[in-house]
């Protein structure tokens, strides 16, 4: 049995048939070949599968693909505009905010969600918001530096 859904992924409208038990992460990776989102824990606590659903950060390993019906889904693959990287991606590169890179897609998507709701987070707000994204390589200091640089560049900056 499959469920018909209509959804938008990275700006593209899609009609798709998904399995009832298929997670959004599985659908993105296996059916759409969007492999930037990673599974780390499978229980929604490590954050490496974070994608944006209607602009909010969601653990795609916990959401069913069928629940994407009528939603707007954005993954790491949908951030860059052609060759132009998203400012968050650029900031991560500039601050070297990754080591092995496995958590990075999720970390960037969570940062994206944070900044869209709060363009100038304090360090405490950033720590709190990103506490659900685990980096075992321990690159938190550089991620926080990347967020700080983005907050300073934000047009609402003072």
């Amino acid at each position, binding site marked *: 049995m499959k469920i018909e859904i209509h959804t938008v992924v990275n700006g593209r409208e899609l009609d798709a048939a998904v399995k009832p038990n298929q997670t959004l992460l599985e659908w993105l990776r296996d059916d759409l070949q969007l492999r930037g989102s990673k599974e780390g824990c499978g*229980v929604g606590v490590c954050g490496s599968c974070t994608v944006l659903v209607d602009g909010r950060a969601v653990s795609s390993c916990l959401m069913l693909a069928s629940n994407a019906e009528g939603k707007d889904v954005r993954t790491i693959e949908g951030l860059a505009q052609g060759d132009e990287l998203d400012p968050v991606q650029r900031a991560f590169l500039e601050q070297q905010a990754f080591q092995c890179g*496995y958590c990075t897609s999720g970390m960037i998507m969570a940062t994206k969600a944070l900044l869209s709701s709060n363009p100038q987070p304090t360090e405490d707000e950033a720590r709190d918001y990103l506490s659900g994204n685990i980096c075992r390589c*321990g690159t938190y200091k550089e991620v926080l530096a990347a967020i700080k640089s983005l907050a300073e560049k934000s047009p609402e900056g003072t």
Partner: protein
Amino acid sequence: LIAVDYEPLAAVFDPAQAMKPGAPILHTESARSETRLDRAQFRFEKNSNVLSVYHAEQGDVAVGFKAADEIFEDVYSSQKIQHGHIEPHAALAYWEPGGKLVIYTSTQNPSSIRAQLAELFDLPQSKVRVIVPYVGGGYGGKVHPRLEPLTAALARQAHRPVQWVLTREEVFLTAHCHASVVKIKTGVTRDGTIVARQVEGIYDTGAYALTGPSTTKNGGEVAGGPYRIAHQDLTTYCVYTNTPPTGPYRGFGVPQVCWAYESQMDDIARRLGIDPLALRLKNLVQEGDMFVTGDKLVSVGIADCLKGAAEAVGWKGKEEQRSREPNGKARGKGLAVMIKTTMTPSNSAALVRLNADGSAVLLTSSVEIGQGTQTSLAQIVAQELGISPERVSVTFPDTDVTPFDQSTSSSRTVFTMGGAARQAAEQVRRQLLEIGANVLEADVEDLELVEGNMQVKGAPEKKKSISQLFQARYGAAVGSMAASYDNQTSGGVDPRTGKGKASAFFFLSACAAEVEVDTETGKVTIERVVSAVDAGKAVNPRQCHMQNEGSMIMSLGSALFEEMVFDNGQPINSTFLEYMPPSMEDHPRRFESVLVETPHPEGPFGAKGVGEAALGPVEPAIGNAVANALGGLRLRDLPLRPDRVVAGLRLVNGESV
């Protein structure tokens, strides 16, 4: 219908129990252990749960203890920890029609995977091809073959490519860090000289051998710490228990003993009324010392590491031991140092190819696992060839194509593979210089390679680009020049004496921590942590700092809360819901890495390794900070959970626990 009647065998879960007479014996035949293990270096036991023993002596501890004014005898323990690489183990295998096995896998060790698959499937190694793309973290957890043999067997049965990705719960069963029980007895004279030390360490290797013997040996070699001690007696046991298998974990057997000797060091300082910093500086090993293993120590920047860490944390001497009222929130600072060996002997080969357009390729089997190997190796080759690092491409391991490497572990890549890459590049450089000498009509000694050009020293207008040199040599700017180098470090220890050349180089580091302890709840908050590592020469300082930061974050987790919990040998917290690695909320607000550079004569440009160096002293530095915050309250079991802190405080206050 088949009726199955199971008869449970007796099991043993505690390594100390497993060593006692009458304990159920797990294995009756001697361990074959890993192919990569150099068996000649180990003392294996038979008919016992003790798989192997490391033992080394120096002087006579009986004499040493007799000369001591004070003797300290304590038992420390550490827990089983998960590597926690966020990328789970994953492999994809297929068989070519000619009977060749091809496997893509997330491993730190392509050569060992190839050797073991060849052995298991009875193939020559040339019929096994191991390809390793970017690896999503390992920290030692991806050194052994795990899912590769089964993936290959399934692919053979299915006649199809088979991919297998482990679930997190399965990852928890594949490997973890050796838990330990370390008994340490130290004799000191009143002036703070350590005169004798006896250590007996038990490492719980789980149900299978794997690299348990080398982890245990590694811990044993340095169990006395980075100190000059005339009389030492060091023994470590690798012991089987009915628990999941262990594996190499960042630090490789050293944090376990470091936790013991550095915690005890602060107890000694307190009893003798000496500043812990001064006590350490008084006893530290120095350049040229003969270590207990028989190694002559070179590149010994440990005093600078310790002083650097102490200065960065604002260490104020004896005042830091001042007893505080254990009410409300108590603050304290702590220090610790560490020494560690690297895998010895070992072997890395590299091939450098210079292209006619002035770009170069480094063929290497080193794995890029987040530590920045691709960058640091490119820098080393670029430096030698006088081109920019962007012009050097570094391969990923493919055992059909790239030269042999022992393993991407033991923080050995920059030293050993970097050394191979440098030597190979140097040979290419020499070929190029000879061409240049002809073309520019100059002596080789008068030429230099700068920014992709060869020029005459002092007369930079006389220069040719690399392309022009190819043109001159071959009549066209085509082709390539190549050279390879096989870098073998020699040494190893004699299992009868525990001595020899234990390490191609030694890791030396220090840590300083400042904590706040909530005496009501027992929660420890790390306010500040500083790691200082002697990198020899930091090939890429930024990446060295990031390795140190990673080590600090990892070990503050195991210092405070990370712990695998078992029920009759079964892990019961095998998800990241119940076992949380440190998150951004645990990240100390003040967090600093210090690099000391004491060049090593055998390292490329003086470089040693840094990947694991910062890890060992973090736990005892935190433990010492907690003790200093709480008037000397010593907690000897890791992790320093709130309930343990509260129980310790109650004991001190004479309350029931």
